[in-house]
């Protein structure tokens, strides 16, 4: 991958590998992942369930529990390798310099503590400030997210808020200590479309105002197309394609990305059967060598028996992990993967 001056990059992930080893199996949830995130950039991490995208997020924060383990790689964040830090050093950074929010805000917040208390805990975990000041900051953070009557919300319990509001509270919590990176794992999947649109708008506004970078993990290409500036596509624990959002969506090079795009209802104008990628998503413990998408790909040849590397794609920019990437010509002249 082309590396520019190191200072430009907020986060640089090199060859990250996270494995889960149990009596029954050895799962390579993250199998050699490289990518970078610039300051203030919104990067979309796209993949189906089982692709390892959530595990990437958790690995960055060092939240992988046994039987999982980060077995290799570096996670260089603001100049430090997170993978080499111990728990207490990581704890200083979590919620402070980088943060993560999850999918279902109902289960993300403890049901027996008031919202305000949970928010203030985040501030007090990293700074010594009075309760009154902390509360003011929480109130302000809720205001920025567009939540009305913030004082009432602070005194409420999580189940008393609506789903959208809860997620906004979580985003506010993540922003409390002004982190430079927020990893969001499917935060809008559990919400209805209208709320989702509102939150996406607010996130963009947040980024514009504060310069916080986002890694937006999702399986929903529609969301990512609206929000992200760069997209990373994951399959079976590896990044199979990366590139600028608009270009990638227009001209997908990897057959899997192409398949994903083709199965989007919005893309198929005519009343036809939605094309589907044959087979099911490979579980990350498929030990077969070579390209992991091989068994579902109609373009596969014997050359695919060797695992391709992530290579720069000159025609479009970005990179792709494929021996037979789809060219721009093919994209415009075919409806589906041939």
């Amino acid at each position, binding site marked *: 991958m082309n590396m520019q001056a190191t200072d430009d990059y907020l986060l640089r992930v090199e060859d990250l590998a996270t494995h889960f*080893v*149990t*009596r*029954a199996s050895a799962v390579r949830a993250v199998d050699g992942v490289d990518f970078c995130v610039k300051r203030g950039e919104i990067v979309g991490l796209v993949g189906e369930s089982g692709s390892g995208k959530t595990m990437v997020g958790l690995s960055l924060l060092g939240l992988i529990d*046994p*039987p999982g383990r980060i077995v290799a790689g570096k996670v260089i964040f603001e100049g430090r390798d997170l993978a080499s830090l111990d728990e207490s050093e990581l704890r200083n950074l979590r919620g402070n310099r980088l943060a993560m929010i999850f999918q279902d805000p109902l289960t993300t917040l403890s049901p027996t503590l008031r919202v305000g208390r949970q928010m203030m805990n985040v501030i007090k975990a990293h700074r010594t400030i009075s309760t009154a000041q902390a509360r003011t900051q929480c109130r302000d953070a809720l205001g920025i997210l567009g939540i009305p009557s913030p004082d009432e919300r602070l005194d409420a319990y999580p189940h008393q808020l609506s789903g959208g509001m809860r997620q906004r509270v979580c985003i506010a919590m993540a922003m409390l200590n002004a982190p430079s990176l927020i990893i969001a794992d499917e935060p809008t999947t559990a919400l209805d479309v209208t709320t989702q649109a509102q939150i996406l708008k607010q996130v963009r506004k947040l980024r514009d105002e504060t310069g916080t970078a986002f890694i937006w993990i999702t399986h929903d290409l529609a969301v990512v197309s609206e929000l992200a500036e760069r997209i990373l596509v994951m399959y079976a624990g590896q990044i199979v394609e990366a590139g600028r959002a608009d270009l990638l969506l227009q001209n997908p090079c990897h057959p899997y990305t192409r398949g994903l795009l083709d199965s989007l209802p919005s893309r198929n104008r005519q009343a036809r059967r939605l094309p589907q990628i044959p087979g099911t998503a490979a579980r990350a413990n498929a030990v077969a060598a070579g390209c992991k998408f091989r068994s579902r790909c109609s373009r596969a040849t014997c050359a695919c028996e060797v695992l391709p590397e992530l290579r720069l794609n000159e025609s479009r920019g970005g990179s792709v992990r494929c021996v037979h990437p789809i060219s721009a010509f093919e994209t415009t002249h075919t409806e589906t993967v041939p």
Partner: protein
Amino acid sequence: MDRFQAVLASPGSVLAGGVIVLCVLAAIFAPLIAPQNPYDLAQLSLIDSESSPLSTGSTGMFFLFGTDDQGRDIFSAILYGLRLSLAVALFATVIAASLGVTVGLLSAYAGGRIEAVLMRIVDMQLSFPAVLIALMLIAALGSGVEKVILAIIGVQWASYARTARGAALVEREREYVEAARCLAYGKPRIMFLHILPNCLAPLSILATVEIGAAITIEATLSFLGVGLPITQPSLGLLIANGYPFMLSGKYWLSVFPGIVLMTLVIAVNVMGEVIREAFDPRDGE
């Protein structure tokens, strides 16, 4: 099959399993192993009463654990007592399980009012502690072997019913039940031949716990004097009989039966723990 390997591999299960097998064998072959039949008054000699462990009696018999106040060899008494305790517990468990599982499966499959009524009864019973219900039943029925068995059944069937119903409810939604229904199999057939085998996992875990509880309930009732009669002394009664002698230093009348009882129940419970951990999807934790 990997789960069975996990069970076998754990050191606790080997030890516990060994203890259980030992006790079962000892119980089955008690008449052959025991040097003396402690219920046969002709074999007893009062001269030998209250002999200490490892002593030899007037007839040349070796008393491994000593004798009680009637001259009974404690070791033989333990073997016969073990037999009784295990027989009662197993018998009661089998009936309680059959009854409970049938009720549970029935209510899961029938649904509606039947299910509501049955489960209401089960819930009501399960909200009371087992020993209390056992006492109530014994108070009503009196003491004796059959009454104790009935009491244990009365206490334990409800747990089986609830677990079986829960498991059956999950299974009811699965595709193979749908398929069987399409093939017009009768309800009882679907219930017992198809759903039941898939519910065996939680039921086996429950059974090990309940067997341990059955042994303990019987022993407790016998200890209190409201369980098995004196003519059929189970381990609980042996312990009770020996209690007054403890104060004068003759510990062996109570302690040895007690150790055997304790070891057996612990082994059964450890086995249950091991099985439960093996079936628990939390691997590697």
